[in-house]
């Protein structure tokens, strides 16, 4: 019970701090709108070439995962600020569970992506996205769990490198290939064989593909199953690594 209480204390503290930043709120809300309004029209004319009639149904799942990845990969910057202010050490000297210290923060990031994702889905439906309601909800949930996994890993990374400069370098280095190889913007089926093979080793690619399948209603397929399995593997690994860094002897 204390575990959930501790998690909720950390979560509420983080949320308060975030909501006090007007820029964070405004940009957070605007981001999904910008993606959809500025990028989707580009896809419309080539939708047929991509093997679909509805560009939004193809594009929105990718955007959802992109929100998850980019919302979560850069969360470590805030943590480095807190580390420098001594907050992490002050929290580590309390009896609170180390996993709670991590999870409270991760849940704030998941909530952020949950709100952004809801706006994205709402606008997508408004602009003409079609699909299976159940599948869309399931895909949305998968994207949120993926956010948790990446945020936890992002915090572990931040506490390991401990400076914004190194974190920026690593996060950018990871995000670009991740973005291109996981077929977020364009499906990997368009790619030449060697690129497809390369992308097969990226777990996020399978998750994106699974979420796309879910959106069009293919719920009970092997692809979806793989997406679920990969998401669970990633979130367990992320929380485990993240807890380890919060517990580590000289973090």
């Amino acid at each position, binding site marked *: 019970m204390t575990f959930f209480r501790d998690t909720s204390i950390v979560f509420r503290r983080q949320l308060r701090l975030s909501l006090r930043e007007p820029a964070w709120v405004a940009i957070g809300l605007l981001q999904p709108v910008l993606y959809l309004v500025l990028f989707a029209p580009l896809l419309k004319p080539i939708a047929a070439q991509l093997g679909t009639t509805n560009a939004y149904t193809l594009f929105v799942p990718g955007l959802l995962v992109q929100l998850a990845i980019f919302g979560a990969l850069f969360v470590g910057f805030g943590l480095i*600020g807190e580390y420098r202010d001594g907050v992490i050490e002050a*929290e580590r*000297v*309390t009896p609170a569970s180390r996993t709670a210290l991590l999870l409270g923060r991760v849940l704030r990031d998941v909530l952020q992506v949950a709100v952004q994702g809801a706006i994205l889905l709402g606008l997508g439906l408004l602009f003409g996205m079609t699909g299976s309601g159940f599948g869309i909800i399931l895909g949305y949930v998968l994207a949120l769990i993926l956010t948790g996994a990446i945020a936890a890993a992002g915090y572990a990374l931040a506490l390991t490198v401990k400076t914004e400069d190194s974190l920026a370098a690593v996060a950018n280095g990871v995000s670009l290939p991740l973005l291109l190889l996981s077929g977020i913007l364009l499906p990997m089926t368009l790619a030449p064989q060697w690129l497809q093979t390369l992308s097969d080793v990226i777990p996020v690619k399978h998750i994106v593909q699974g979420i796309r399948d879910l959106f069009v209603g293919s719920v009970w397929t092997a692809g979806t199953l793989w997406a679920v399995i990969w998401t669970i593997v990633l979130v367990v690994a992320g929380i485990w690594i993240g807890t380890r860094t919060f517990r580590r002897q000289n973090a």
Partner: protein
Amino acid sequence: MIHATALARTFQTKRGKDRSEVKAVAGVDIDVAEGEIVGFLGPNGAGKTTTLRMLTTLLKPTSGSATVAGHDLLADPVAVRQSIGYVSQSGSTSSNAIAGEEIVSHGMLYGVSQKQATDRGQELFDQLDLDGMWLRKTKTLSGGQRRRLDIAMGLVHDPRLVFLDEPTTGLDPQARANLWMHISDLREKRGSTVFLTTHYLDEADALCDRILVIDCGVIVASDTPDALKRGVSGDLVSLVVNDVADAAAAANTLSRVAEGETSTDGLLVSARVRDGGKAMPDLLRALDASGVSLESIEVRRPTLDDVFLTMTGRSLRENA
């Protein structure tokens, strides 16, 4: 309250292919009784902070054992955390956060209810001269206020044992004097045991019942500030005579009570004298009897810097 035996910490460092071990703390024994204010004194890099981080469960000892506030450090770190307060050098609050909210969240992480944490926090703000700061962003507080906020954060769960890591580093003289008062109040008004690190001699001197001196990872002395100073060097007595002709007679008289060499430099005659204050009346009478005319006389108690110098052959300030 603290009982540590052979507590040691070794760091592995890697430079290229060379791996080497650095003994940050090479095995220290520490005993602190309930109600004591103990200072942990030493130059930077002596192992002060490393020892403190081990005692506060932030760093695992490589070897050795310790009981802190009645709980075994290695077997039950959570119980240790519950019973101690820790005020680190690097602060404890986010600069964008509201001071009052930070202390309430922090108290709640110790299992205190929101209402209790609020009451305790407001009481502490009151005691630590932070009235009116409850709703302020912490970045708008002065250095001294932020330090006191850190102390309030460390006390919100009413710990019996408080660790302070270099509490006054970077503060101006008024803020330091003010903080010293609050630190002695921790014991006077709350009955807490206090363990603090410092590299300021005057601070250790002013606050502590007992001082542990650490150098190169080993404790080299442990005693009251006065005993340390008395035991090592005696007080420095300096006489200034009116006439150079009197200097020899003055030196002769002084050497009868002196501990070591008596040195003469023009009009100035000086020597180390055990318990200089007590020796003074007799010395003055003797000087008078031998017809020496004095311009001034000064008795300077040895500083902890003198102590450190005689114990380690190095000055504390060179390293600070």
